[in-house]
């Protein structure tokens, strides 16, 4: 199995996961002092919507992984189409997230409501920024190899970006798995 030397994307992923890991532990530490409040507040979240969004990201991640596999075979048109499909599925996540935020804000649940919702908006908000960045990357990858570079250089460059962009998108997916488990499920009835 070929190993990369030390591609920056892997270092970025390791550092980003570490940052989120610290946030998860700070959340759990705060929860230890206010268990009843955190569990009560967690019941106000819509776990089925969180679960649905987890399935959306997993499906999108699968399509992106598939695009990466066919891209390595040089089937760039198929990779482009799969990237578009991955983006289309992933866009559902944003719609659901906006609905969820609207449902909370419309009943006066804001970042100031209590410590739980401060963490809720912080964790899901930072994750949403990662998601939006990932959607931009997927949109660029869905364009295919650059027409402005010589063909061989364009293909090599596209493959590097395809691999790096895919890895970033999978990280967005795996971070949501922990966020969903910790925010939505731990305090569920």
């Amino acid at each position: 199995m070929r190993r990369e030397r030390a591609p920056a994307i892997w270092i970025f992923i390791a550092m980003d996961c570490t940052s989120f890991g610290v946030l998860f532990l700070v959340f759990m530490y705060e929860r230890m002092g206010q268990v009843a409040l955190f569990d009560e507040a967690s019941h106000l979240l819509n776990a089925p919507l969180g679960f649905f969004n987890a399935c959306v990201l997993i499906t999108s991640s699968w399509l992106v992984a598939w695009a990466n596999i066919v891209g390595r075979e040089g089937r760039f048109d198929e990779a482009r189409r799969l990237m578009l499909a991955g983006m289309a599925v992933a866009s559902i996540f944003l719609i659901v997230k906006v609905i969820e935020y609207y449902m909370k804000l419309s009943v006066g649940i804001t970042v100031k409501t209590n410590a739980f919702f401060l963490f809720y908006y912080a964790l899901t908000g930072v994750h949403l920024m990662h998601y939006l960045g990932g959607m931009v990357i997927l949109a660029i990858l869905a364009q295919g190899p650059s027409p402005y570079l010589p063909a061989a250089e364009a293909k090599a460059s596209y493959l590097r970006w395809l691999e790096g962009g895919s890895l970033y998108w999978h990280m967005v997916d795996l971070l949501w798995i922990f966020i969903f488990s910790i925010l939505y499920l731990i305090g569920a009835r």
Partner: protein
Amino acid sequence: MTGKIAGARNAWLLLLAISAVSFLAAELVGERHVAIGAIMLIAAAKIAVILSRFMEVERAPKAIGRYLYGWTIGVAVIVFAMWWVAALG
């Protein structure tokens, strides 16, 4: 390469199935420590599947691959331990 595509598809189906189990555990299992333990174990398992089947972490530098698996297990175990300590009051 076809095998890799089939592997990714199987991983996707597995992830959807165990996500459903995790969600149901949170809703239906009466013993909270069992439910929370199952939720964190399944979360770690799902991330391990994503790391190995979608991200092909074996292609990363060995130290980073080990770190990411360690991070996954570490977060799951510490979250469960902190939940347990809080539950003991």
